[in-house]
């Protein structure tokens, strides 16, 4: 039996004049998978998302979407939806008018309102369905953009920073919708700068830096790439804890001018592998020092991201 992923890209290259936006990018996204796309500004995320939506074509390489090779602009097959650089919405129209118009453009019966109502309900905008979106907040627009994408029951959903501007409740709402779609078999490719969003949503991530893939794989594997981290340590006796940390093999203690320490004098910043931290905790307990907080200064995923994209180098050197 033939089996094909939702997205399969090999050696994708795209440049704008002298600027190379994508340089030999490989990408695989399976149906039912939420795939994160991360990278620093200018890494090529938006260009790659644009290719997936059919807004541009690669200069070279091969891209298959939903089993169809994409060779020219706007030739992606039906079943692909989403947005890049924020959802395109018309402020002079109401939320319902925006969605109805989109449904009509995509060939659905303009008079059929059930799909529009369902989409609005899924993103929690039913109460403001007949308001002009001129007065909508950024988060509401993001949710309406997601509703617009849902309207066409996509098999590949491409989202650029979908949680941008959302409050915690709105973010949870959006996460629920995305997870629901993935559970029904929709492939979701989303970009985000928020590593906690990616950790919560994605099963796999691809990290881009200067147009190249520097990591692609499961989120759990990415966390392992982070290596040794900085940890904030708050105890009942900072002076004693400082001495214990200095005496613990494999650990380094950040100097007093460290940023975290400036913010809170009771906090130590220590650096080392996980076994050394375990030993530190044992010694603190033996020294009768209570541990009130021990957590990475930077989340493991974020640390891995910074390490892989080179942005964390200066911090490392500083320490």
């Amino acid at each position, binding site marked *: 039996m033939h089996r094909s992923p939702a997205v399969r890209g090999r050696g994708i290259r795209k440049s704008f004049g002298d600027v190379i936006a994508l340089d030999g990018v490989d990408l695989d996204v399976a149906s039912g998978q939420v795939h994160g796309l991360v990278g620093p500004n200018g890494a090529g995320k938006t260009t790659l998302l644009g290719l997936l939506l059919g807004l541009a074509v690669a200069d070279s390489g091969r891209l298959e979407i939903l089993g169809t090779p994409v060779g020219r602009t706007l030739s992606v097959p039906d079943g692909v939806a989403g947005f*890049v650089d924020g959802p395109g919405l018309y*402020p002079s129209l109401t939320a319902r008018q925006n969605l109805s118009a989109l449904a009509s453009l995509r*060939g659905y019966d303009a008079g059929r309102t059930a799909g529009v109502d369902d989409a609005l309900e899924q993103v929690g905008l039913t109460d403001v369905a007949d308001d002009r979106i001129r007065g909508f907040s950024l988060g509401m627009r993001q949710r309406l953009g997601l509703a617009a994408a849902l309207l066409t029951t996509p098999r590949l959903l491409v989202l650029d920073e979908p949680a941008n501007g959302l409050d915690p409740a709105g973010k949870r709402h959006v996460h629920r919708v995305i997870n629901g779609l993935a559970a029904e078999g929709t492939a979701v490719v989303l970009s985000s700068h928020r590593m906690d969003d990616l950790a919560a949503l994605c099963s796999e991530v691809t990290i881009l830096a200067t147009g190249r893939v520097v990591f692609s794989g499961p989120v759990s594997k990415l966390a392992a790439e982070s290596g040794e981290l900085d940890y904030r340590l708050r105890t009942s006796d900072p002076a004693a804890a400082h001495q214990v940390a200095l005496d613990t093999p494999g650990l380094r203690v950040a100097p007093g001018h460290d940023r975290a320490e400036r913010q809170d004098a009771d906090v130590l910043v220590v650096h080392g592998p996980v076994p050394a931290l375990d030993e530190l905790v044992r010694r603190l307990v033996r020294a009768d020092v209570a541990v009130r907080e021990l957590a990475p200064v930077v989340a493991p995923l974020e640390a891995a991201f910074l390490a892989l994209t080179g942005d964390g180098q200066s911090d490392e050197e500083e320490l």
Partner: protein
Amino acid sequence: MTTTTDAPPQVRVRPTPVMRGYRFELVKLLSQWRIRVLLVACWIAPAAFVALVSLQSQLPTDTVFGRSMHATGWAGSLVVLVFSCTWALPLLTSLVAGDVFAAEDRLGTWRHLLVAVRSPRRIFVTKGLASLTVLLLLVAGLAVSAIAGGLAAAGNRPLVGLDGHLLAPSDAAGTVLLAWACVLAPTLAFAAVGLLGSVALGRSPMGLLVPALLAFALQLAQLLPLPVAVQLALPSHAFIAWRGLFTSPAQAGPLLIGLVVSLAWAVIATALAYRLFLRRDFTDLTYDGSGRRVLVAGALPLAGLVVLTFVVLTGATSAKGSGIEQAKVQNSLATVYAHLYRLQTRELHRPDVTEAQLQATASCDKGGSLVADHGAGNDWRCVVSWHLPGTSAAGNAIYQLDVTADGRYVADGDGPKEVNGYFQVRTPTGDAPNPLWQFDGNVDLLSSTKE
């Protein structure tokens, strides 16, 4: 790394049908408060203006047909037509067609629209059709409102044409409607320039202003004593040439040329806009107009069209110089005078005479012996002579003519009070406006000189 689906999906690439895209573009345009205000204004303001002016004692005599607004309702709609051709239509095309593409740049909705419609060609077509529809609604509003206002204020009465002949109400109605229809061609040309500006200049406000700036520049050009072939090569000439419909026979040459030139501009500017639009890279976030390409791909081809039209017209017509020559002015003035003399005769309840019996002739001189007798100017001085049946003596009446470069002139009478020296004449039923005192005429810039 990847899981896979069990079966190859059915995939299709299906652009949006044109009708659906057209409807969406129309909804977007009509949801803008600016367009709504324009629609209301175009359907109400002309009627109010014409009705108000028709009730005043002072009429806009500097506008063609303005002096007839008390006499017939059809004159009011023509005054609105003159104003529309000068200001309203170029501005309307700016606000509708000049913004239809730029609005997507401002809102950042291009990518959304492209993903939804899947065809830049169809987006262009639907946007063009939608803006054309709105423009037609606006022009229809101007015409209907002006006609309704005029008829309500001054009644459905005969209209004096620009050669002095009287158009019966039904003829006036047909000719007025035809004149409004004729200005659709230059309106299309300006709309196409608006589309071009909107596509080429992106979110820059300059895109919005292109048709208005072009209209302003062309109006300045029309004030200059340009050769007639240059005047006719400009896309705005049909905004003036409809006046030729109000002579008998109609001055069809300049009008037909004006219509063809306007339509050529409409087609070429639309094609240029289409080409620029299809070449645009919609993934470029920093796009803010086509920059230097505007000059190369937009302005230069249109300038080339003017030159080409000029060359063709110079070779294909007898048009020479300004088109305003002594013999043509004399011929036009004598014709108008003869028609209006008959009108005055009827007002005074005198025995009717025919134009042939009057044998009216005019002798004109421009600026004395030191100035050549051709071209525009307010220094034309003419003496009209005519004969009454049964008398051997000829009557004479003097006129001071202000002739503009487009061929229109205002004749100001300077003679006996009973003929053309006073604004009223005494009729058996009381004082009435004197048709021979001041009147408008129109020289056919293309006609061959009759010595």
